[in-house]
């Protein structure tokens, strides 16, 4: 096991013990896409009366999103807008009528793997850890026959993301139940819960719950290091392929990784028949008054969230990061709807961000020792600048998981991760040259 960077714990985290529901705004601007590469068609028209849980959009082909209405009200308009990830897609604008009428899925009588998979497909659950793709696409009917391992990430190494950890502490039963449903789709014998070393409370809560309520459950708790990015799903998968995975002993088979929020949403879809239209998001930042974890509905604007959490009077918000501080995207404006592909929202002040001028590489090799994938970032950087895509593939550029550790540790402030990511894009689009 090698690489990664240690990010010190955020001191405010100790107070974040509850998950608060944000009051519904007047207007919802619901995005119909969370990630590029999928096609959806809108099933409502302007002027339609909708309930919470009405279908707003469904996939045109086999791949795509089921989008459900987060509130009851009337469709005001359908507009083109950018999502936080920079995808231009149709957004449905809904005016809240505050009647709170709901529409639910039919009751599930048969909880066989096949039925659970069907429910997963229509539930509208979106992965945060796979970059916003629909969860059901990773599962297929074939996978019912084979035996796979399920990994559930219950806490994150990024100090700004505590949503998974707090959800595990507060809603242990739902998370464990949801994980069991996923495991039942995969017909896997046991579930592996991955917890970072510093998530002591979550570990206690989990053990206590299972001992008390489900003593027959076959499970395993494995500790992942506190160093970033050991909770990254790409790293877990890649290390597995490489047979150097610290978490896995089995040598063949496929890994399925879920997180606490996905399990919680799946539990609600199965037991309470609720479509998934929310996400637990950690809101933080130096100038924010009520930092903490919030249930944020799909289509709530960032502006409204900022208003609800409150900023200090002399606040000077310098940067808005959607997603973890190491791998998230920056927002250029607050007039953007919050989707369901993120765990965190950071309103960073100027003091928090460290910037510097890019210098010549001093060849210190810190990036090499920080790389969790055991690549040579300094060599890749050189090849990226020289535009030698073919040589870069020979140095394994396609294996980079874009965690950003190399850029983090670089004393010369070189844009290593950024350059590697853009070259990866070029290679994907243009092939090897």
């Amino acid at each position: 096991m090698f690489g990664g960077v240690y990010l010190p714990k955020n001191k405010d985290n100790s107070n974040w013990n509850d998950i608060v529901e944000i009051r519904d705004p007047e207007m919802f601007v619901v995005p119909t896409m969370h990630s590029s590469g999928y096609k959806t068609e809108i099933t409502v028209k302007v002027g339609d009366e909708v309930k919470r849980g009405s279908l707003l959009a469904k996939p045109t082909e086999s791949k795509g999103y089921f989008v459900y209405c987060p509130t009851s009200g009337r469709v005001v308009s359908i507009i083109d807008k950018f999502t936080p990830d920079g995808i231009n897609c149709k957004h449905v604008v809904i005016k809240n009528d505050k009647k709170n009428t709901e529409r639910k899925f039919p009751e599930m009588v048969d909880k066989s793997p096949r039925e659970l998979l069907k429910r997963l497909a229509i539930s509208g659950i979106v992965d945060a850890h796979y970059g916003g793709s629909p969860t059901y696409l990773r599962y297929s009917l074939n996978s019912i026959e084979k035996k796979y391992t399920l990994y559930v990430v219950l806490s994150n190494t990024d100090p700004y993301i505590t949503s998974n950890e707090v959800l595990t502490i507060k809603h242990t039963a739902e998370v464990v139940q949801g994980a069991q449903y996923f495991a039942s789709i995969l017909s896997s014998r046991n579930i592996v819960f991955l917890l970072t070393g510093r998530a002591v409370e979550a570990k206690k809560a989990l053990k206590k719950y299972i001992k008390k309520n489900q003593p027959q459950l076959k499970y395993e708790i494995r500790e992942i290091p506190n160093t970033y990015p050991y909770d990254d799903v790409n790293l877990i998968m890649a290390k597995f392929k490489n047979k150097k995975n610290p978490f896995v002993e089995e040598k063949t088979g496929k890994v399925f990784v879920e997180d606490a929020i996905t399990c919680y949403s799946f539990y609600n879809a199965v037991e309470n028949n609720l479509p998934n239209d929310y996400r637990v998001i950690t809101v933080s930042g130096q100038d924010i008054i009520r930092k903490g974890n919030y249930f944020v509905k799909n289509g709530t604007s960032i502006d409204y969230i900022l208003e609800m959490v409150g900023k200090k009077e002399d606040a000077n918000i310098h940067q808005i990061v959607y997603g973890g501080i190491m791998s998230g995207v920056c927002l250029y404006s607050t007039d953007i709807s919050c989707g369901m592909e993120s765990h965190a929202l950071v309103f960073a002040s100027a003091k928090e961000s460290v910037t510097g001028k890019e210098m010549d590489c001093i060849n210190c090799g810190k990036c090499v020792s920080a790389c969790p994938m055991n690549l040579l970032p300094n060599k890749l950087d050189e090849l990226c600048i020289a535009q030698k895509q073919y040589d870069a593939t020979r140095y394994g550029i396609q294996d980079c998981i874009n965690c950003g550790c190399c850029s983090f540790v670089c004393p010369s402030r070189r844009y290593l991760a950024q350059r590697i990511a853009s070259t990866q894009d070029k290679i994907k689009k243009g092939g090897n040259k």
Partner: protein
Amino acid sequence: MSYLVSPAPHRLTRTSANDMFMYVSIAALSCLSYGFFAYGIKALIVLLTCTLTCVILEFGIQSIKNAKPGISDYSCFVTGLILACVMPINMPWYVGMIAAVIAVFSKYLFGGLGNNIFNPSALARSIVGVMVSGFSFDLYNGETALNSILSGNSANIALNELMLGKTPGAIGTTCIAFILLFAVILIVFKVIRWENVLCAAVGFVIIIWTQMGYESIIPMLCSGSFIFVTVFMLSDPTTSPYGFTTRCIYAFSFGIIAALMMSHNVFGETAVFLALLVANFIAPALDKVFSVFHRGVRKHD
């Protein structure tokens, strides 16, 4: 209201390359301060000639390279200060200047910061050392510790004198206790790597033990600028390899070569710098050979 938009990651480490150069500069300057205490104004003249020449040359080259005149980083201070540390006290002032010119050009001829194969100060000091070996005057104000050990007078040297730097030697390298203190501080600040220091010492001790017996180990370690070179020059990030294993091999081979050259009295006080140049020379080769252990590195067709 406008917000800063930048690609991930949005946090960086606090320590920048310039900070690292600054820490090393402060440590080298503190080592030199012992030289002022011992030798007075002479040491100051050496410091000024070496450092000023380095900074002025760097300023000139950067002004030609870039549109804006000025120095881009503090590496020239490090070069100048370390060069001043390793200079003999009675060196004529123009020799210091020549050494500084060699040091700066040895960096820029290979393409500037981060691309040089040899440590600039070590290269300059070895060339100058070989050059002035024909001079007949006393460079060190008396017989240096290394010379007296090699000529069999090691009984004259007490260990506490070596530790406190009361024996003649290069300006900043005699006070071993001081240098070791800075070694610990620099390791804690993650400016230099512990494995470099340890492996070099192990290699050195093994060879001295087999060549000269165990009673010479500590006097040899503390003489001939070995500890100064290990702490300040061997750990130069640019000229050392970038993997952990390769760094260990590099430092270990430096220890062996230095011990062999010093114990056989090749070029006297200059031996350790020549040994460093040999180690620098094998570093890129080590990187190349060990890169096959990294993920995705395929053999070239």
